[in-house]
């Protein structure tokens, strides 16, 4: 029988040196879903205009398996591109101001301040401190959700029979909790999240209607970090996805250096509420940089 770790026909781990050789022999293996390290080795990344991203600008490239999670600290100005590899991802996203992680995504303010429940190109992702965390630069999907949050072990167990992250139906909330812990954050920081690539609409009587994926294979959303961010994304089935089997496609997360939205950019002044949010963001950066 072939060694599952190395694919080789022989396995000798009887001594430390043999075990070391065995471990090292695995190092060049590649699987479908894994990070590109260094990120500059990701030479196929393009932006919303179709332009290739120069390797030296690349910050992060990760293919997240269905049910998985990934997170990074990313600098202000960077562009994050979420790609729906299989046309069925559900990117559960949480965002924090890396300079003061007490400041975080607020989905209620995001929809209330913009007078709009459905996210799309041009939407701002707002913090609980009245600032812009991210700007949605491009969106080929148009089917997202800012209301329904993330699955729990309890909800996945009710739906699929199990929900623990150690099993075959990992839940988003525990994926978040573990990722947040790696940034010094805990369950009290685990606030309601955004979901990209799986949509929900609200009927006149308030009923929630799951509309699912609209962007298909290769659909993408590009977001710009307007502050230094802790960016966390779990790829797990939407909590209202009615399919009886645990169903979610893989997700690619790529990020590269760029400049924050500035005065004069149409996004800056697209709405009066958004302009004040950019101004409050600028004010924060001004004092933060001056205090350094």
């Amino acid at each position: 029988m072939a060694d599952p770790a190395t694919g080789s026909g022989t396995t000798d781990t009887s001594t430390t040196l043999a075990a070391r050789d065995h471990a090292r022999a695995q190092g060049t293996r590649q699987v479908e879903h894994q990070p590109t390290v260094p990120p500059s080795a990701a030479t196929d990344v393009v932006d919303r205009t179709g332009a290739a991203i120069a390797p030296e600008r690349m910050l992060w490239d990760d293919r997240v398996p269905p049910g998985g999670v990934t997170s990074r600290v990313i600098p202000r100005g960077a562009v994050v591109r979420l790609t729906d590899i299989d046309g069925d991802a559900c990117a559960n996203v949480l965002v924090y101001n890396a300079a003061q992680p007490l400041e975080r995504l607020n989905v209620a303010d995001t929809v209330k301040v913009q007078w709009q429940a459905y996210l799309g190109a041009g939407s701002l992702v707002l913090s609980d401190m009245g600032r812009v965390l991210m700007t949605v630069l491009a969106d080929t999907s148009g089917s997202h959700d800012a209301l329904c949050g993330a699955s729990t072990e309890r909800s996945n167990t009710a739906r699929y029979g199990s929900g623990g992250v150690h099993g075959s139906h990992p839940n988003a909330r525990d994926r978040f909790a573990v990722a947040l812990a790696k940034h010094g954050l805990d369950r009290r920081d685990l606030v309601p999240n955004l979901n990209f690539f799986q949509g929900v609409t609200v009927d006149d009587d308030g009923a929630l209607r799951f509309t699912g994926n609209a962007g298909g294979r290769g659909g993408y959303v590009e977001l710009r970090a307007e502050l230094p961010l802790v960016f966390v994304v779990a790829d797990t089935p939407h909590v209202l996805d009615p399919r009886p089997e645990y169903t979610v496609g893989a997700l690619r997360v790529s990020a590269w250096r760029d400049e924050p939205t500035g005065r004069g950019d149409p996004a800056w002044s697209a709405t009066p509420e958004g302009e004040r949010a950019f101004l409050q963001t600028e004010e924060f950066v001004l004092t933060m940089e001056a205090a350094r």
Partner: protein
Amino acid sequence: MSAGNGNGMSVMHDEVLEARAPWAHVVEPGCTLDIIDLEGNQAVDCILYNADDPAERYSAPDTITAQGNIFLREGTQLVSNEGRPMMTITATSCEYHDTIGGACSKESNALRYGFHTRHEHACVENFLLAHSWRGMGKRDMTSNINWFMNVPVEADGTLGIVDGISAPGLSVSLRAHMRVLVVISNCPQVNNPCNGFNPTPVRLLVRR
């Protein structure tokens, strides 16, 4: 709403919370909290915590996905971030209540209405003060309920706080399923119709 025990319940706590003020109170399992909109169209911002483990707290997403509807009505279970029912709306004479509109803050008021509102009192200020009484803080801020507030969502996704559907004397009754720390901000907002542009007192009654 009778303050007496004509229905076999005894009054544990009875208080008129002044306009614009914070409030925090532990409601024991089996007890009922009545929130009475004394003068009509007064938004009452509210967060629930498991009093024995405040990391478990009310979750708007878990509540609306559990019932498949954004409006809180009679029979709605108020669900925690752990997916457990914390309280149930056992009665409400106001047809429905909001849980997607969030709480007003000085910071978000500045976005919605202009920088001139930056020093006006706001619900997040009340919540943070109430948290400070118990060693809690900003990390404990989370999604909230807006009793007596009306936030419709149009077909194209447009949403907003519009004129209320409450009236003087309307009330909502909440039965606790665990020891629930109820934290309330009697909303001070004067820039939108959630309080009829006139914040007023509410009555808070706990019955066993």
